């Protein structure tokens, strides 16, 4: 009797134990999860805005990790000791980067962060209640456009990339192979062309800064142009950006880059910063202090190359002065030339960038708030001119080229032969977009990196190997963890 009871008890306790689920169901009091998130349109919007925020980390990370690879390898910029003494930065302009190098690794990671966020929204948006169809379609278009933009940034930096077009919903779906360059461009083109018509031309004032249909089209045109064999499509797309939207060149070049005209009609898309604190928020970068001369408290991590300075001096304006853009781009000392910075004459013997050096205050407080422009109207004009020239329609290109020249105070170009127009477009792109993360990628698609770096006496000219250093190798963090991708044998 006794032992039988013990056995009964023993069993009953173990059965009773099954009733504790309430006690064990605990919710995270801090974060929501996939089950209780996606409640309404606000959730969709907040998640969508994260895509933009992911592209703009604060402080030094921005110029070292995100902007560095775009600016340090062109013939417009000369990296200096303060940049080169950091291993991970130096590896980029010296072309000594290995797959473990953090700068390309961070670009790769961050772009796929943006893409991953986009894919989540696309996966869940149809289940969100209380949204009308137009809103759903607009969000979908915004998300797809941003996803395509991230793929485009990856394609500029890496020879081959992974097309990530869906949210992996299980451990077995995490690894995707590399795609061909052509296939990846096709994906970017498809996404942007489908998204553009569904996006607003302009957002309301309180939503300014989100991607518009004009931006999607401008990047679509860029995607055609970068492929080299889609000049006709590029031409049509850029023409539509010009015809269907209100973009125009800003009269004052310099104010595009010092934060004083962030709503200029020239700006098509930008990565945004602000001095606004909104209680806890705070979004600044260190571009000003990184640019500015060490004579006056700057870090002086790079300076305008001599080649850029000479190119500016090559041609004077119609009234015999320096190119108007020169004053908005660089700070230098020269007899009989008034170079004014922040209300005072610039006296240092060291030449530095003025572009994105918004004020002395930005230098001394190490905080820059100016938006970093990734697409503006001048770019559309020059890319259209290029697309026409490459189709042997140089004469048609010249009027667009002249718009850019005239804003700089230069005369009309005059010549219409393909060689001259092509050369002038390339020169104008140098002068127009110095320090804007365009030049190296331009040189790559024109196939003249080695030549131009040599001419500009860039520190990496000797190390650059044609066919190898145009693109970063797929980072180690990817090849280590993705069995479908092998390490780049060239690195």
């Amino acid at each position, binding site marked *: 009797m006794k032992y039988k*009871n*013990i056995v009964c*008890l*023993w069993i009953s*306790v173990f059965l009773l*134990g099954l009733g*504790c689920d309430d*006690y*064990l169901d605990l919710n*995270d009091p*801090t974060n929501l*999860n*996939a*089950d209780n*998130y996606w409640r309404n349109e606000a*959730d969709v919007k*907040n*998640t969508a*805005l*994260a895509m*933009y*925020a992911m592209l703009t*980390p604060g402080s030094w990370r921005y110029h070292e990790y995100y902007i560095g690879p775009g600016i340090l390898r062109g013939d417009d910029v000369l990296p200096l000791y303060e940049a*080169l*003494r950091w*291993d991970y930065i130096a590896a980029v302009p010296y072309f000594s980067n*290995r797959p473990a190098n*953090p700068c390309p690794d961070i670009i*790769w990671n961050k772009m*796929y*962060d943006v893409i*991953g*966020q986009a894919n989540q929204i696309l996966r869940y948006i149809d289940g969100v209640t209380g949204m009308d169809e137009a809103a759903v379609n607009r969000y979908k278009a915004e998300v797809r456009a941003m996803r395509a933009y991230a793929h485009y940034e990856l394609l500029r930096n890496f020879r081959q*990339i992974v097309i*990530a077009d869906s*949210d*992996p*919903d299980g*451990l077995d779906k*995490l*690894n995707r192979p590399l795609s061909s360059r052509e296939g990846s461009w096709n994906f970017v083109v498809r996404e942007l062309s489908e998204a553009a018509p569904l996006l607003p031309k302009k957002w309301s004032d*309180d*939503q300014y*800064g989100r991607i518009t249909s004009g931006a999607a089209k401008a990047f679509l045109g860029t995607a055609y142009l970068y492929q080299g064999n889609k000049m006709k499509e590029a031409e049509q797309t850029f023409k539509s950006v010009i015809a269907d939207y209100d973009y125009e060149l800003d009269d004052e070049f310099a104010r595009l880059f010092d934060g004083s005209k*962030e*709503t200029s009609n020239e700006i098509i898309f930008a990565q945004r910063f*602000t001095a606004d604190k909104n209680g*806890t*928020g*705070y*979004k600044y970068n*260190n571009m000003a202090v990184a640019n500015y001369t060490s004579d006056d408290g700057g*870090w002086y991590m790079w300076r305008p190359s001599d080649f850029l300075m000479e190119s500016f001096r090559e041609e004077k304006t119609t009234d015999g002065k320096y190119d108007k853009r020169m004053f908005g781009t660089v700070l230098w000392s020269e007899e009989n030339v008034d170079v004014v910075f922040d209300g005072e004459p610039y006296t240092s013997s060291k030449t530095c960038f003025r572009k994105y050096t918004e004020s002395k*205050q930005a230098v001394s*407080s190490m*905080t820059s708030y100016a938006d970093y422009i990734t697409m503006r109207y001048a770019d559309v004009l020059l890319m259209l001119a290029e697309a026409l020239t490459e189709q042997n329609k140089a004469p048609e290109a010249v009027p667009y080229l002249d718009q850019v020249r005239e804003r700089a105070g230069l005369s009309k170009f005059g010549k219409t032969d393909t060689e001259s127009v092509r050369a002038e477009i390339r020169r104008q792109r140098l002068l127009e977009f110095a320090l804007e993360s365009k030049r190296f990628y331009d040189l790559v698609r024109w196939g003249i990196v080695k030549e131009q770096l040599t001419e500009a006496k860039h520190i990496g000219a000797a190390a650059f190997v044609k066919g190898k250093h145009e693109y970063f190798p797929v980072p180690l*963090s990817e090849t280590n*963890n993705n*069995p479908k991708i092998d*390490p780049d044998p060239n690195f």
Partner: protein
Amino acid sequence: MNLQIKPRKQSALVRIGLLCLFFCAWSAAARAQAKQVRGMVTDEDNEPLAGASVYIKSNPSAGTLTGADGKFQLQTEGENAVLVVSYVGYKTVELEIGSRSVLAIQLAEKVMELDELVVVGYGMQKKSDLTSSVALVDAGEIKKLSVPNVASLLQGRASGVIVTTSGEPGASPNVVVRGLSSLGGGAPLYVIDGVPSNSYYLDPDDVESVEILKDAAAAAIYGTRAASGVVLITTKKGQRDSKMKVDFSSSFGVQNPTHLQEMANSIDFLAFDKALYENAGKPYELDLTGAKIADTDWQDEIRNKNAFQQKYNIVLSGGGKNSAYSFSAGVLGQEGMIKENAMKRYSFRLNTDFHRGKFSFSPSISYFRQEDEYETTSFNEAQRMLPIVPVYDDSRPDGYGYGYISGSNPVGDLELKTSEGTTDYLNLKLKADYSILDDLKLTARGGVEKTDYFGYYRHAPHQLALQPEREDNYHVLEDNNSKRLNLVGEAFLNYTKELQEHRLDVMLGGSFEDRWYRRAYVKLVGEDDDGNPSGFFNEDGSTIDAGEGSTSSPSGYETQIRYVSYFSRVNYAYADRYLLQATIRRDASSKFGKDNRWGTFPSVSAGWNLGNETFMDNVPVVSHLKLRGGYGVLGNDRSLGAYAKNARFYSGSFQTSYPVGVDNKLVLPVFGKDLQNDGLRWEQTVDVNLGIDFGLWEDRLSGSVEYYRRETEDVLLETLVAPSSGKNDPYTNLGSMENRGLDLLLTYRQRINDLNFSVSGTMATLENEVTKLNNDEQKIKGKDIFFRGSVTQTQVGDPAASFFLLQADGIFQNMNEVMTHVSLVNGEGVPVQPDAKPGDVRYKDLNGDGLLNDKDKVYSGKYLPDLIYSFSINADYKEWDLSMFFQGVAGNKIYNVQRLQTEGIAFMSRQAPSHKAATDFWSETNTDTDLPRPALGVIDNARHSTRFLEDGGYFRLKNIQLGYALPERLLKRINVNRVRLYVSADNLFTLTDYTGTDPEINSSVTESVYSLGLGYPAYPAGRTYVMGIQLSF
């Protein structure tokens, strides 16, 4: 928050309570008459034995201990009761009480305490009855030690247990039982007086005994949290019917680093630096005109020489007829080996016991406070400063020297920055016993642990570096508050029955646990919207309000974890020869989804006391012999965060905000990168243990040999995923791993007239192998070091985190050697390192493709040692006692990251080199060296390779102690029982080839199980000299 859960919690307890009533009802008839027994226990010289254990054989857990006068008093039931009296170092006596009520018991000394009672989970067991692997830390040993924390008590006292300590004040040592049980790492579970508690907050002077449950059969009763072993700690208790006893101890000591990297002086640095540039063909641009050239030994500048420590502890214990108490209070003050770095600790504990009839209650309370003054720089920072920089420099804004390279003046960091923390810990425990029947007892225990932490950091505007951090321009203040509340409750029944030669123990119980944590943090930066200094109108202000008008960034979160468990154990012994134990435990954890919440963890073990067989009587040399074996399954969920299964959507912080709209209105977007993972389930460790315990020549030589194999399956670990997935690294049940080895313990004791000595050695072999990952080809790389990739790799068939490295092959002595270092590719000789120069490091192109890359990296060793051994000698002669304790490991490697950094060639820029690097580098006049030529930017010479992989083996005298107890005749005159004076030294000498800070690297520094054995610059280990006094009256 605890209010909400109480009703539900009770339900588990109420259930058990009801069961007990049920139990009582049908066995009430078996009640017998109670009876009081008194007695006195003495040794062979009729001296009273204090603290001897006295209990009724049929109910071992209802025993008592003798008082200081050797007397005891006990309730027995029934006249057939058998009284068992045992005492450490004496033979256990069993006697039938019969009709006697007063007993005089004399114990004979014995060499081995085999019948000693051992605390096992939820009860006690005779050591001779154990069928599982339990290691005991000798109580006598503990009394002699003067250590700052409980974990240090375990150091080398038991085979297969390794403890590594940093010299930082208040540092918590790392304890590993039998290797790496889980890829997710894991410290053992500490159970203090029956309740899982944090051992960090326990004063080691309060500890009475320590036991370590090593195998699953022993630990399974603690189920889910026992996978890395269980450490059972019993604190000092008072004894009933004894007058107050006072134990006082105090010690003083000084501590210095065992080893510091010697750095180059200014002359050597300048010569090295010149070579660094010239060898690279770069113009030498160090401009020293007008500069103040110093010759600073930065490590010396921040070092606190002879760091002082002091410790006081007093214990008052005693008891009346029905109650006993033990009160203790302690103070510990310890300076760090860096200036402005110190720790103070205050502890307080009251353990009480109250008895009435069949009830006994044992409430206890302990309070602990720690005040930390944290170091605001490190020896590593000091190593990175150039010797030519002066400590103080009037030409700099704040008067502190800096320059030439990045890096903040460490002396300035110490003097201008304040970082402090205080921890308050309160622990309340209640244990209640009720003897329902002679052989049935109910025990209930509850515990509350409350921890409050307050951390504080501040600095004024300052300039201590060439490129100061942005925040250095402003006042900064951080307040960091956290609270932790752990609740534990458990109830269990013990039933014991003896029938002729059969003995049966059954235990059955349940428990719950609730762990809650909440943190709030605010940081203020004294600047206004335009970046101008503001706030802190009171510049010495140290509170949040003093910084009104500053920019603030608050953060905070809360987590909660709950467990519910049911467990049972059955022990059966026949004729003291055949032993059997089975346990089963069911656990549920709130970390898992509904479907995977419960885990069932069984174990079974058996033993054969061969020595008690009659046929062994003919083998007198064997005093005892036991064979035992066990099998068990343990669960683990500790590597998981409270909500790890959720795909979180979280609001960003100020760094992730984004401005929207023409007026740049900042929004905080919502991020979501996680995979929802409801399929997470318990990690399981399947453990097999086989052992022999033996004693020869009346236990003069005794020991045990054990073989163990533990396979951990479904290891819960963060799986590194490809970034292109767009996902955070999720926790998954990743793979399997196996640990196997032999544990050996051998002790020899001898008594020659007044000389009493024992020599004891432990040895444990360890073989670790990853047996399964997501797929057999998967290679999990360790963390990146200096952007050069990782040095460790975890893959199937190898030990976890094995080193995979390029093979360095000496130094090129001339161009001819460079040109002849070729691989044959398609029949053509391709130079492997065409750009190398004489003085550069040569690497092997193992796959012969003419390139040096990942494919040339091969297995080069591992951090987990093959062998852990220790050796101790204890001797006493009349009033003197001496103990020495040695510890060592062999067969392991450490990657010396510190050397990579201090050779001065790892980066593209100028660096401070070590003395050796600056004076012994390769040059045409110094070719007999293993250091390459310095050449800026030639990072090939600093590639990860076997050049930095060093033998991590060591042999060290961990502790030596010499004590002298004042003779008794002297003591009697001053009415004192015992006075012992001692001197002791830690880490007196170390034999090792490792050149980094210390071979006992604390693996928690390396953060991840994929990256074991990285010798980063660390807080050095301390060589400590202590003298102390122990006093009892």
